[in-house]
Each structure stands twice: as C-alpha cells, then as structure tokens.
C-alpha cells in the first residue's frame, strides 16, 4: 500500500479543513486515519469515531509530498468497516432512500419534466440533488443546453450514480446502482453532468469519460462575449468545489474563470481560501451536519470578507450545504450563466 510512503511531515493534517475547523480531538485527521491507524491490524474498528467526518475534499492528497492518496485510502477503510448496524442515522436515511426510490434523497414533489429526446448526441445526467432538491439547477442546465443548441437527452430511468454510497462504504448497493444506470446509457456520445460528484463517480465506476457542464461549455460550445448579456455590474466570488478542482482537475477552474470573463458587466473578486472545502462532501452533511455547517460558515465568512454580491459554486452539493448557513447569495454556476445567456 502506498500509505507506507508517509514521512510524517504533517502537511496533510495542517491543510485538512476538518482538522483546522473542528480540531484534532474531534477529527484525528488524514494521517492517523489512513496511515497510522490501519497499521496496527486488520481490526480497524477503532477508527469508526472519526472516519466518517472526512469530506473527501482531496486537499490532503494535494499537499502530500509523497503523493499518498489518503482520501482513497479512507474510502477503502470505510468499505472494510461498513456495517449496516452501525450506520449513523443520516447515512441510514440515504441507504433507505436508495432502496425505496433509487435516489439518495427522498424526491420532493413533482420532478420537472424530462426534455424532449431520450437519446441524442449528448446525454445529460442530472444527479439526485439537481433533480430533486434544487431543481433550478436541472432546469438551468437543460435551458443552457437548449440555448447552445445541443442535441441532448436525459436517459430514461436513470438512478442515483452511487457516489454517496461509495462514501459510506456500501459498495454492494453502489454496484447495483451502477448496473441499473449503465442499462440506460446506450445511444449517447457525450455524457455531461451537473455534479462533480457524479462526474467522478461515472469516470471511476462506469468506464465512461463524462464531462462536467463547465468542461462541456468551454471545450465543445465555445462561448464568447457575444453569447452573454450585460450582467448589470455585479461582483461575484468563485468557490472552487473540491471534486471539481482537485478530482476532475485544475483545468476546470481555468475554464470556469474564462467563462466568467466573457460576461460583460461582471467582476470576479478574490475569495480567500477559494479551494477550501465547504463541508458538503463525503457524506458529512448527512452524518455530521454540525461539522458540515461549521465548514460552510467558514466559507461564507470568507465570502462576506470578499465584498462580492454573489458566491458562485459549480456543484449542487456545495450550494446545498452553503445555503444551510442561511445566506441567500449562493448561486449555482451554470444556472447563473444561463440567466445571462442570450
């Protein structure tokens, strides 16, 4: 195992947002969980107290001089440790929702109608949150695709991508979702998603090469100054979602900023610690809502300091968690762009 390469520089702990905000007593941190703890034996039950507090933000891997994939190791341990009888209440709800609705969350009211085609050049995979919890993201993305003239459709009968289950360590259930989804994926050339969690999941477990909407808009559509109307001189700050900036890649951040630069009447202000996790990932919102909220508050306080009017985040999970702080200035990135698209 590559965790063997740790030289105990402490970098991962110092940069881990959960350690920074919650303290090492509450979350013993990536090195203890992924490197030190498991060395003792196959009996890893003693890690249970803390291991579900990792948001899988992948910051620790980024700073590790030995390039140890600590979050992946943490996910492997979650898999080994998975015990349906010892789940946190929030995690049990996710599993129950998957069993009942094949979605990680309980559908709220009427889901927006699927767009015309069920097959096409581009497949849009909405993901649970965009579709059921913040349908404006779903509508915004569909409308964006229509505006840019894409030939697209939503696969009929798609289910949760399984990413939340991987985070809980429940790989069997995850695999069954993967199987269900793959049956609906036929006949599309390009796959795009709203949620970086879905993008990563599809890439890792479906054998496909999906694009996040931002990648698609930048690489395949080619928007320019003429594509947008004047934004009305507003200032925005840009939050870099972990699973987009680190898991999918830095290039997605460049794309996002490049897209914003094309919008007339828009100023992008510096956001301190823009790439720090908002707390929304890794099943922490469900498992330890207080921890997720602490991290979200930290992010929103950087936002207040930035002096911007809006905080843009290209990830439904981030939006969901940041909104819990009770500040209404958070906007999903693509939805925001869509409103300005001619």
């Amino acid at each position, binding site marked *: 195992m590559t965790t*063997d*390469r740790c*030289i*105990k520089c402490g970098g991962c702990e110092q940069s881990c947002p959960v350690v920074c905000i919650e303290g090492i007593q509450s979350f013993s941190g990536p090195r203890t969980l992924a490197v*030190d703890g498991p060395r*003792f*034996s196959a009996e890893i039950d003693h890690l249970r107290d803390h291991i579900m507090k990792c948001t899988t933000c992948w910051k620790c891997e980024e700073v590790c001089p030995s390039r140890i994939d600590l979050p992946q190791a943490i996910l492997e341990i979650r898999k080994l440790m998975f015990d349906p009888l010892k789940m946190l209440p929030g995690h049990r709800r996710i599993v129950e929702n998957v069993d009942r609705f094949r979605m990680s969350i309980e559908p709220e009211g009427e889901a927006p109608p699927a767009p015309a085609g069920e097959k096409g050049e581009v497949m849009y995979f909405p993901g649970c949150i965009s579709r059921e919890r913040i349908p404006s993201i779903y509508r915004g993305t569909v409308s964006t695709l229509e505006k840019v003239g894409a030939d697209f459709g939503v696969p009929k009968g798609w289910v949760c991508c399984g990413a939340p289950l991987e985070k809980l360590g429940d790989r069997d259930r995850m695999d069954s979702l993967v199987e269900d989804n793959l049956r609906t994926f036929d006949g599309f050339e390009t796959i795009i998603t709203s949620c970086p969690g879905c993008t990563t999941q599809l890439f890792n477990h479906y054998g496909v090469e999906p694009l996040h909407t931002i990648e698609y808009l930048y690489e395949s559509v080619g928007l320019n100054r003429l594509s947008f109307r004047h934004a009305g001189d507003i200032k925005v700050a840009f939050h870099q979602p972990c699973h987009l900036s680190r898991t999918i890649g830095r290039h997605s951040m460049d794309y996002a900023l490049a897209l914003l630069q094309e919008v007339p009447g828009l100023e992008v202000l510096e956001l301190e610690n823009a790439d720090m996790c908002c707390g929304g990932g890794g099943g922490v919102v469900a498992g330890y809502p207080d921890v997720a909220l602490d991290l979200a508050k930290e992010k929103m306080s950087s936002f207040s300091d930035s002096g911007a009017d809006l905080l843009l985040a290209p990830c439904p999970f981030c939006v969901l968690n940041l909104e819990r702080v009770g500040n209404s200035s958070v906007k999903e990135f693509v939805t925001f762009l869509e409103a300005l698209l001619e």
Partner: protein
Amino acid sequence: MRCEALVIGGGATGAGIARDLSMRGVEVILLERGDFSAGATGRSHGMLHSGARYAVKDPDSARECAIENEVLKRIAPFCIEDTGGIFLGIDDSYASYLDTFMKGCSNTGVKAEEITVREAMEREPLISPSTRVAVSVLDAYIDPFFLTQANVAEARAMGAEVRNHCEVAGMDLWEDTVMEVRIRDRRSTSLNVIKPEMVVNATGAWSSRIASMAGLEIPIRVDKGSLVIMDGRKVNGLVNRLRLPSDGDIIVPSHSSSIVGTTCDEVPSPDDCVATIDEVKLLIHQAAEMVPSIGEARAVRAYAGIRPLPAEADEGRDISRTFKLIDHSQDGVVNMVSIIGGKLTTYRLMAEKASDLVIEKLGNRGKCRTASQEIGGECSDHEFDLISDLQAGRMAAKYGAACRDIAVMCSRTLRGRELLCSCEQVLRGEAEYFAQTEDVLNIADLLRRTRAGMGYCQSGMCVTRSLSVLEESGGDPLPLVQDFLEERWKGIQPVLFDTQLRQELLKVQLFKSLSLEWKGGEGH
C-alpha cells in the same frame, strides 16, 4: 549491602529469576548494566516458538518450546498476541522436507497440522501464489520488553531490589566463595559493594566476562542475528519458511510492523553489533519469496542481537538452542551459578531451573509457582473515559496489570492525553508515568517502556516531546538527544534507501530547526 541472591543481567532470564526467587521469599538484588531487555532479549524476534522450527534438528529445544508456549500464553497473556503461525513450502524446495518436518513435530510433541493452500491464503492473503504446502502451528508474538518489565515489576512488588544502569564491575573472592561484588551505578560516581550469599550470572552473551571476574571460564560462541523492521502488518500471524532453518525464514507481526529475520554469523565480541545493508537486502529478498509485498514495503530500521550459544562441537545454526545451567562449585566457586543459551520462549523454564539450584543451596523455601501464576495478576479489560479505544487497547497490551494506573495518569490532565507518538499511538501521560521512576535516565529508556519512537518515522517527531517530559523531571536535554540519535542511527543506516531515506532527510531539516546539528552518526 547484603542479600541472599544477587542476579546479574536484566534480560528476560534475569528478570524471570528475580521474580521466581522473590515469589519464594528469597531476598533478591537484580542488577542490569544498561536498561532491562537491552541485550539479546530486546533484540530478539519476538517469537513465542511453537517448537516447530527446532523439531527436526534440535528436538530438545522443540520439546521445551512446545511446553513453555502453552505456559506463557497462560501467565503472560497481555503481552502475547496469540496469532498462530504457518510454515509455507514455496515451489519445490519443500518436497522432501515436509515429511521429515511433520515427523519431527509429532516426535517432539509440537502441534502441527497440514492445511490447504486455500486455507493458508484465507489466513494470510498476501502470501506468495507459488505456495505449495502449508502447515499450521501454534507460534505467537510475544513482546520481549513488556514481558521483562512485567517480571521486574512483580519481583519488586515481592520485595526484590532491582536496578538498571548498574554494572557489575568486579568480584572479590575468599577461597572458594564470592564475598563481595563491586558495582558501578550510573546514578552515582562511587563504587558500591554487595555481599551476596549466592550469585546468579544471567548475562547471556556476556556471561563469560562475569565468570572471569570469579576466575572462571565459560566457553560460549557469540552469534549475531540481524533483523529488519518493515512498516505495517503484512501478515496476520507468524509466517515461516518450510525448509531447514536458514536466513530470512520468518516474518513476525509486531505491533504496527512486521519483523523479518534472521541471519546467523559468528562475531568476535557481543558489544556493538549492528546489522548491515547487505543483510537487510538479503532478508527482504528472502522474505519476499514468502510474502511478495514485503519486497515493496518500507524498511524502517534494522537491528542485530547476539545469541549466546553454549559452545560445543557444532557450528552456527546446528548448535542446540536449549539452555545450559552451570553450578560453578564443580570448578571451584561454591556460590555462583550461570545460566546461558535458551530462548526467550523458554526464559521461565530457565529461571525455574536456575532458581531451584539457588534454593537448593540456600536451603529449601518451597516450590516454583511461576508456571501457574499470571504475571502481575489478572489484567481485566478496563474502560477508560477520555482515551480512545485504540489507545486504551494499546495500553492494555503493553502494560498488563499496570495499565490502569498509567491510564489514570493520562486522563488526569489535558497534556497527559496529548499524543506523544502518533506512529504508535502513545500518549504523553504514559511517558510522564515512567519519567517519574528511578529507572528512566534517558530518552531510550522512556521509549523502550512506551514504544514511542518505534514507528516508521523512527522518533523524528516524538523525540523532542519525550525530551520535554524528561526535562520536567530534571536533566540536561541536548546531550540526551544527541546520544539517543546517534544510537538510533546505527539501526537506520542499513535501511537508508527509498522512503526511509526521504524520512531521514526530513528529520535532518527538522532537527536543524531545533538547532540540533544532526547528520547521523560519525562520518555522515
């Protein structure tokens, strides 16, 4: 100072004798030149032998090990991990040996059972796919440091006077009797004198030196064995190579690491024995034939120990590993006995036999009870508030009956609960507990008692914290660190490749920031 029995040597054997004699009401003084288990005991492989390794070539040792294996599991459960062991036949080299091996085991009362390769894979998922046969045995892991400490603690509880850092420097005889033994205590400058009725020489590889102080001669052969510590547990139980005993045959899971050993070479002196990089590479290469991932794992430290083998006609590995008890009245000194050879596994039996002889000479005081009485009394499972399960579990496995007091010490203050060593999950309170005692004079003493610094960073991070614990109880800090690091360096030098090299470079920088100019040992 007078006493009935002076035991020289604080390895497992000496500590075991001190315990045994004290339990029978004898007034005992035990002296150790360095720290307890600093000799062969602490440099052993930590294998509680089932006897199987000796079943073919050394049946007496095999029999002794088979019996003591059961006894120790009963009396020292806290420091034993009863993991079981397997012997693996790799490729075709085992073919003719398997029968001989099984016969040897059954002749010596060693329990051994052939299992399918499939079963072996289930127990040890990382073993080589070229495994052809597997035999299950009762090997276990035993921690030599905690075993010795527990014997010392109990001897003290029964009234024995036990001192480490206290060297026997000479003896004065009157005719056929040792009258006075001169000792040099590191804590004071003056030379002290002890007047013992009986002297027990349990100094292992150094026993001929002690004997010569009384004008006696013990022919022993000093044999070096090297081992290498690999990070992480690659095996669940002990993994042995099924073949005639040779180099790199055994992998032992030890706390958070796997120890690969051993080699076997005669050396001129028992002092200053270190492992070499060639030995390390040989050991890793051999062990990787059984468990391939050992080949990619990280070697964090190497060490070597000296086997004191009673010198007979045979050579090296062929010399019997059973022990020898010498009553020196046959050579003209009536009140001295020496006990040499043996195994860690048979230390209790050796202690029993030596104690029996001492008792015989002092006048009867009753029978040996060490085979039935658990060391330190029973160690019940404690629930420690404020301390994580992982840490509480680690403490119970290290300190046995003493873990309650130590956990209390940790819980008392916020500082006590701080992590001192994260590799081994040692809390500051554990170190504070030992730092208060008279036994601890330096950093190594502290680390030996707590396992701090035994993990993969090899005390890069905990050394300064340990120092601050020691500082609180007085003492000049800098020379202590320097000494410690230089000693450590001997074990790190042979593994300076791959990740451990990067680790050491980081440490050099780190120590620099603490104004500690450390470039390894001399010449680096």
